[in-house]
């Protein structure tokens, strides 16, 4: 038997909306007024034939009176009308509209849904421009190089009596920064190209969604705010990170941990002092509130499972990272601390201290597989420079180190470098 418990109420509501008397509708539907009264008070279930006659008498689709898909459509259309300020849509006649023009009603609701989706996508893109650490770092690189080029070019053009020593120095700086500008611009283009994957929100994976979410909250993972994540997979990832963060905070309490760090304690000695695994200490250093250190984690396949970039040290969004990272040295030598002082190819003068450690585990016991997780802490090296350092990159595709023995594929930056470097 069709009709839900409240079908009668919808019949009554529709009749009153049209301003019709019970007797008039009953006559049009071939019912007695007393029977219609029982129906309207939900004391009689309605047969399909009676429902059809009542719907015809009330100029409405039977589905509307049934409260099924038609009612949902009516709700959607009412919501669409309410969302548009100053609309002149005849909201009171929505059921009649659906009944008379079901195709147009469905199309209107679909367009309203699409409009809502696009509005949310625009909001997400706006939010991304403000919070995406990768994009922010790339833009900062370009703007810094542009600032230097503009200022130095101005000096050279406007200072007629510039000393030879200063002139030589500024010409060298100009060559360096024009190269850096070209590389930065190419990297930015590569990044933005990578973002153009046809999806509305341009977020490539749940991992990236979580990283953007964390970046917007100073990398503090907690249960609070999980509902801001769109996908269930992202929420699950974020929940795991929140659990880890809570555990880290309990084992490595912030005041004592900060005090030990201020003493200059090494991660290995901190691990011994607090009774925590070294990777947990590296993670805690990078994820302390306000920390500027970067952190990457990878599994045994080398896949980056967590990425917090440090300023000036780009971490790839897609594909494999630079094989020269100490992260991978550690991955191949579990339980051995690996430390290296390096600089990023194409960024002269910027030095980094990288410390990595790999922790194996056997969750399935003796009979199960060995799992590995390696962590690498990325910090600016503030010690006095003692000469050039070995170079690493982000990923081969956007790395300018043309003579790198570990290169997997050619770089899109080769052309930019060759065009700008030697001319000055």
């Amino acid at each position, binding site marked *: 038997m069709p009709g839900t418990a409240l079908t009668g109420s919808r019949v009554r509501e529709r009749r009153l909306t049209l301003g019709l008397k019970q007797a008039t509708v009953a006559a049009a539907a071939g019912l007695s007024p007393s029977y219609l009264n029982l129906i309207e008070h939900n004391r009689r279930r309605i047969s399909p034939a009676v429902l059809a006659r009542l719907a015809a008498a009330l100029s409405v689709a039977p589905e509307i009176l049934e409260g099924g898909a038609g009612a949902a459509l009516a709700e959607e259309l009412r919501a669409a009308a309410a969302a548009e300020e100053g609309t002149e849509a005849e909201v009171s006649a929505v059921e009649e509209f659906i009944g008379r023009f079901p195709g147009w009603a469905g199309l209107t609701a679909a367009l309203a849904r699409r409009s809502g989706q696009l509005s949310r996508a625009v909001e997400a893109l706006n939010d991304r*421009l*403000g919070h995406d650490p990768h994009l*922010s770092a790339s*833009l*900062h690189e370009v*703007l*810094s190089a*542009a*600032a*230097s*080029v*503009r*200022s*130095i070019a*101005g*000096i050279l053009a*406007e*200072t007629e009596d510039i000393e030879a020593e*200063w002139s030589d*120095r*500024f010409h060298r*700086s100009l060559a*360096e*920064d024009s190269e850096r500008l070209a590389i930065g611009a190419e990297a930015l283009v590569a990044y933005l190209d990578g973002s153009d994957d046809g999806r509305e929100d341009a977020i490539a994976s749940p991992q990236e969604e979580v990283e953007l979410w964390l970046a917007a909250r100073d990398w503090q993972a907690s249960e609070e705010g999980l509902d801001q994540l769109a996908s269930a997979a992202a929420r699950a990832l974020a929940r795991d990170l929140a659990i880890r963060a809570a555990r880290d905070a309990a084992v490595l309490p912030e005041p004592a941990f900060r005090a030990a760090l201020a003493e200059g304690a090494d991660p290995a000695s901190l691990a011994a002092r607090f009774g925590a695994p070294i990777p947990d200490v590296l993670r805690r250093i990078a994820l302390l509130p306000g920390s*500027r250190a970067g952190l990457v984690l990878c599994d045994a396949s080398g896949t980056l499972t967590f990425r917090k970039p440090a*300023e*000036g040290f780009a971490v790839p969004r897609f594909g494999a990272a630079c094989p020269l990272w100490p992260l991978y040295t550690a991955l191949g030598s579990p339980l051995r601390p690996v430390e290296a002082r390096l600089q990023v190819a194409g960024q002269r*003068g910027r030095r980094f201290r990288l410390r990595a450690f790999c922790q194996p585990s056997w969750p399935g016991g003796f009979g199960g597989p060995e799992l590995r997780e390696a962590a690498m802490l990325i910090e*600016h090296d*503030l010690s006095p420079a003692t000469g050039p350092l070995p170079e690493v990159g982000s990923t081969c595709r956007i790395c300018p180190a043309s003579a790198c023995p570990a290169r997997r594929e050619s770089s899109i930056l080769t052309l930019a470098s060759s065009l700008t470097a030697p001319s000055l």
Partner: protein
Amino acid sequence: MAGKVLLIEDETNIAEAIRFILSRDGWQVTVLASGERAEATVRESGPDLVILDLMLPDRSGLDVLAALRADPATTDLPVMMLTAKGQGRDREAAERAGVDCFMTKPFANADMVAAVRALAAGPGRAAVRA
């Protein structure tokens, strides 16, 4: 001599360029490549104003600014902040923290010199917005 400027900027080439153009204008410029020793250097060298990069490697320019404003001896020291376009939220935070003037990267050398002159000449926190 026009006065003393403390420049805190980690980008070596930008720092060199600013030092050059301000020196030519008669300023005595001290350069720091990080914010770590900012307060100590201010105490030692007694600058007339500070040019502070927002994004420093070890410590945010906002932290340095907050420390200067918290110290009664430097609470009114004129501070110009160097920012990149698109750092709207950071700029708002710097304004709340009491910065006197912004200079957006990339900048014109003449604008930098004019802003430094105005900042040094103005009483307390000048309303300079480069």
